[in-house]
């Protein structure tokens, strides 16, 4: 009985999640320029237009670069903090997790204007204007938390006996890290990194405030184009493609790291 109810709720939940996505797909073939319903004619011209749209490709590439940059920084910083918190006891340790969560817990617009005005008054006078780099910095700030939490949880569960054993057997610290510690946290890094990348990839508010001239990530491109009637259907195509493509990294992560990695911790 309970199972049956759960199954129905799950099905309804998936319906709720996928109906709008289906609509995006349907509308990418809708001849109407502003998503009129019902669709009055079928066309593939938006797909052709999207294919020829250099702006979308450039924006996608910018987003990938920003996402990779932010993820790389988040991986390094998040792992460092996780190790510090898990392996050491120090004054203010309890506050660290709060500090790490803060950038994602505060509204994006607050983080956005704070970073923007700080960048302009502190970093720009040093000669480094806003550009792709400032976007990466902004994204990395709120991405650290995903890596931190994944690695911390893993460290907590695994303990240090293996590493101690490795050291006792005469391995140098570098060797211990390479052969014991890193494999231990690898899937946690993957899960955290994947979520960090996803967060960065769809971020729009912080990006609006931190992007320099000429820098257009995919969400910004979408934002600019959605509000142009000639372009809105092309945006649907891009979104549809993204949905389909996104199955790939998620699936890969599942393969590499087991079902836990794709999901485990947000």
């Amino acid at each position, binding site marked *: 009985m309970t199972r049956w109810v759960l199954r129905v709720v799950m099905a309804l939940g998936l319906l709720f999640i996928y109906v709008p996505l289906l609509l995006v797909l349907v509308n990418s073939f809708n001849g109407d320029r*502003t998503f*009129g*319903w019902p669709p009055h004619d079928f066309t593939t011209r938006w797909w052709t237009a999207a294919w020829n749209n*250099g702006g979308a490709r450039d924006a996608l590439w910018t987003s990938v670069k920003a996402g990779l940059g932010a993820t790389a920084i988040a991986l390094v910083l998040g792992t460092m903090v996780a190790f510090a918190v898990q392996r050491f006891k120090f004054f203010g340790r*309890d506050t660290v997790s709060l500090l790490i969560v803060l950038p994602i817990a505060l509204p994006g617009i607050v983080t956005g204007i704070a970073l923007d*005005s700080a960048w302009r008054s502190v970093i720009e006078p040093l000669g480094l204007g806003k550009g792709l780099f400032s976007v990466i910095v902004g994204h990395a700030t709120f991405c650290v938390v995903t890596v931190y939490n994944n690695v911390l949880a893993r460290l907590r569960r695994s303990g240090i006996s293996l590493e101690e054993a490795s050291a006792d057997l005469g391995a140098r610290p570098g060797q211990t890290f390479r052969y014991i510690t890193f494999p231990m946290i690898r899937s946690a890094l993957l899960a955290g990194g994947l979520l960090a990348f996803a967060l960065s990839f769809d971020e729009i508010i912080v990006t609006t405030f931190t992007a320099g001239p000429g820098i257009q990530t995919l969400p910004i491109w979408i934002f600019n184009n959605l*509000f*142009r009637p000639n372009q809105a259907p092309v945006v649907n195509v891009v979104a549809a493609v993204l949905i389909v493509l996104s199955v790939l990294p998620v699936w890969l992560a599942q393969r590499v790291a087991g079902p836990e990695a794709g999901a485990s911790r947000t």
Partner: protein
Amino acid sequence: MRHRTLTTILAAGVLVLAGCGGGGDDSSSGGGPGGLSVPKIDKLASLGAGEGTVNIIAWAGYVEDGSTDPKVDWVSDFEKETGCQVNTKVAGTSDEMVTLMKTGEYDVVSASGDASLRLIYGGDVAPVNTDLIKNYADVFDGLKDKAWNSVNNQPYGVPHGRGANLLMYRTDTVKPAPTSWSAVFDANSPYKGKITAYDSPIYIADAALYLMKTKPDLGIKNPYALDDTQFKAATDLLTEQNKLIGEYWSDYTKEVQAFKSGDSVLGTTWQVIANLAAADKAPVEAILPSEGATGWSDTWMISSKAKHPNCGYLWMNHIISPKANAGVAEWFGEAPANKLSCAETADKNHCKTFHAEDEAYFSNVWYWTTPLAQCVDGRTDVTCKDYAAWTQAWTTIKG
């Protein structure tokens, strides 16, 4: 303990950075309210060689390099001819443009009238030496030396195009066809909940324009110069109107879609939106009501802190050249600024549809102008409400 550590960190952060906070934006001078003077900034005396780059803030669709649609491109040729690489930042609102221009990162901006005076008095843009812009001679006279683009006969930019904020309605539901703005302010409107209005503080001017014609006692001479009483009358009217509103619109996909689905049946619009809705077979009509209308005319302005002034001037000349100007006007959907552009549009009816050459039509249009404390209608015995006051009032109107 836990709580104290957080406070300690926060406090330490304040101490460390409070010292670094300064030094951001104290570049240009400016008098306080009352002493309205334009910051003294020199205009470019002669055109030198291009600097290789130009950073532009523009409305979506103003700077197209073929990346959206290979056929829509008036940037690549410019880049080839001048060697100026074009970097564009698309702004969503006039307010955003002003904020971005204050950063000093950008050379030119396509400012609407609700931004241009703020930029001029803020010292963010420089006067323009029109002798260095060959195509300026061909701009419609109706657009030159206007309150929103010039001060004391000194142009602060080159006009780009213009349009009016029209009244659009669905012909199948709204009967009889409206001829006056009273349709959107009527407290007993049968279309309650399906009326739409432009989502910006500048929309207060639409109410003021209506009051200017219907309540002459208020003595409104210019919808952008409102003293306390006039301002209160306008905001009261809008607070009443809020009960009729279904939604406010700011982007045109939203507006077209709402009119097509029937979520909105009556309200302000732009010509281009009306055209698009009609092209998608929505039964809509857009009119210039008997009271006239507000409207906009964009101006390309050059930053007072431009790092690439020569490329900036080259761009301003290029964007109002007949071909480029025609391209933008058609792509964006507005009346071009250059007289010669009408011969260059792909749709030969474009200038007619958008009333480009119809000065009588545009004589009924009050173009967006930044409200200042010093009344822009020339009154000196009262203080007017400035744009900051308009903004806060708009928040209150929406509730």
